[in-house]
């Protein structure tokens, strides 16, 4: 039960939040509900952190709500280093977003439902990473997706969130229908829904058109969530339309659940000799990076620029996965964590500016960095980190990705990736220039955001710097995660109890 505790705490707090919110509204203490949600995230984060002790003893742990004598069939939870790494990232960014939301959302109505949806979305994401079979994965996937649709369309009195939310819902739901379909086909092939059983049945299977078709269906289904390029068009609309803490969540971690599912599908379920996923993922990664970077160059809206930059960063992540080596997987996991930190920071800084100025147009932000020093400096740290400046965490993960690509002798991919990196620097530096120019008239009146917003920014920027100069703790966890994901036999034997 200890393994389930982070998820159960999040679900419990999520369900109880409307009741607490009702009591708070009656007692005229509206902000108490935010403190309640923050409290939930803190407890859940601590519970999740404690799981590391369990994992040190045993790399793959299986828990079922229905103890079975034989094999686990469906409805069970598997905790390994990969799921631990992802879930702790999800809960941490949720915590920071909640801290940011307390002041950012203070003028909005419907706060109890906002925090309830946020908690349930993180609960769904943690559930996705812990799922041991397709049934559990699907249920938590939809919990996460449905909460995120509602959060994107949260300010429904404006036209933008409604339009963006509808687009997001249609594309993402079509993706999950494809996942459901490929899940049934996998059952038809192997006779089970559990990842371990499917993986063991497909070990040593010869390549066939059907297996390729199933893999492509899974890739499309999860790729819509991960915003891989032919299926990305919802992202640049949905992320700017959501409230800023939610944009940080969506760009920082929600799209990573898609990446997590792709890692599971390609490294655990269907391994390389059966389906060679490397050329497919490499092609998609090149497309994703290039389109993301080029479209980010022409953006005038700060949040839209960051959204396109997310697409580009997903491209680097998929590049790392497409190598099919343990080193590549390690680089991808490190980049997942670093990108969650820096993109979360960038969106929260944009939120802090929007909270004060009320505009998202880059030209109207001229000089805001001088009027809001904490926000400006944090924004600069986030953008430089995204651009890959040394001594910040973005550099570490980009370095690892390109080192892994050279190690796997994918020289063309490395070259394209480096070229894209250089294009990325252009628009990041342009934003920093605008931020620290001489302030224009409209900006002169601006002053620094409330302390809770700035404290969330300071925490994240400190982490960006700390992991930039001292990446060892991160790489230690990522190394274990990559190792045990790559050795899929450990996963299979532990779950099937050979």
């Amino acid at each position, binding site marked *: 039960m200890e393994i389930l505790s982070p998820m159960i705490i999040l679900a419990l707090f999520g369900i109880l939040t409307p009741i607490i919110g009702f009591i708070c509204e009656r007692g005229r203490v509206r902000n108490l509900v935010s403190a309640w949600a923050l409290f939930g995230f803190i407890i859940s984060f601590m519970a999740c952190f404690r799981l590391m002790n369990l994992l040190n003893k045993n790399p793959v742990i299986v828990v079922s709500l229905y103890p079975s004598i034989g094999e686990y*069939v*469906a409805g069970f939870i598997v905790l390994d280093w990969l799921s631990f790494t992802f879930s702790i990232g999800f809960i941490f960014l949720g915590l920071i977003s909640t801290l940011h939301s307390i002041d950012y959302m203070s003028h909005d109505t419907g706060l109890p439902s906002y925090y309830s949806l946020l908690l349930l979305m993180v609960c769904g994401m943690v559930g996705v990473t812990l799922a041991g079979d*397709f*049934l559990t994965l*699907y*249920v938590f996937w*939809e919990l996460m*997706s*449905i909460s995120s*649709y*509602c959060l994107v*369309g949260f300010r*429904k009195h404006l*036209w*933008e969130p*409604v*339009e*963006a*939310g*509808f*687009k997001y*819902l*249609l594309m993402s*739901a*079509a993706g999950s*229908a*494809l996942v*459901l*379909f490929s*899940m*049934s*086909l996998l*059952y*038809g092939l192997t*006779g089970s*829904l559990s990842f371990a059983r499917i993986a063991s049945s497909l070990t040593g299977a010869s390549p066939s058109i059907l297996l390729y078709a199933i893999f492509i269906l899974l890739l499309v289904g999860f790729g819509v969530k991960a915003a891989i390029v032919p299926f990305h068009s919802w992202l*640049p*609309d949905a992320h700017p*339309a959501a409230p800023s803490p939610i944009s940080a969540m969506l760009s920082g971690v929600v799209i990573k659940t898609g990446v997590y599912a792709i890692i599971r599908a390609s490294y655990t379920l269907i391994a390389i000799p059966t389906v060679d996923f490397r050329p497919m993922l490499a092609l998609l990664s090149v497309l994703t990076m290039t389109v993301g970077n080029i*479209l980010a160059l*022409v*953006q005038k809206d700060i949040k839209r620029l960051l959204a396109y930059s997310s697409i580009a960063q997903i491209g680097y992540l998929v590049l790392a996965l497409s190598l099919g080596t343990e080193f590549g997987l390690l680089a991808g996991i490190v980049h997942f964590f670093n990108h969650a930190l820096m993109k979360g920071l960038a969106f929260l800084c944009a939120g802090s500016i929007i909270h004060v100025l009320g505009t998202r147009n880059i030209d109207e932000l001229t000089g805001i960095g001088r009027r809001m020093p904490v926000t400006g400096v944090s924004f600069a740290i986030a953008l430089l980190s995204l651009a890959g400046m040394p001594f910040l965490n973005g550099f570490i993960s980009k370095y690892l990705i390109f080192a892994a690509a050279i190690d796997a002798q994918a020289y063309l991919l490395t070259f394209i990736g480096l070229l894209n990196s250089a294009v990325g620097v252009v628009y990041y530096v342009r934003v920093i220039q605008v931020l620290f120019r001489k302030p224009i008239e409209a900006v002169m009146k601006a002053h620094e955001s409330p302390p809770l917003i700035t404290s969330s920014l300071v925490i994240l920027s400190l982490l960006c710097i700390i992991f930039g100069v001292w990446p060892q703790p991160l790489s230690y966890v990522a190394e274990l995660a990559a190792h045990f994901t790559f050795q899929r036999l450990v996963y299979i034997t532990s779950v099937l109890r050979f």
Partner: protein
Amino acid sequence: MPIEPYTFIATSGVLLAVGIYGLMVKRNMIKMVMALEIMFSSAILSLVNFAYFRMYGFVDPILHVTAIIAISVEACLIGIALAFVINAYRHYKTLDIRELRRLRW
């Protein structure tokens, strides 16, 4: 006359194609939501089909559980989608998706 499993597999494949076609071609928001529902139906039909035909004389209850859960999840999804449609209608006074193109690039 016994029904072959291939009939169901083919039907679910055709339904999936119909759903994707509807999602891409239709311009009415309600019709797009219906296309989405057809896609889910095809997946659920495929699940139930494999539950019955995978092994002779044995119907897998796990897949039936999955199908029922999928149906209920889909109902939630359609509810949210229709809520979006209502809100979009309030803002734009039309259900034509072509009018909802203020977001571009």
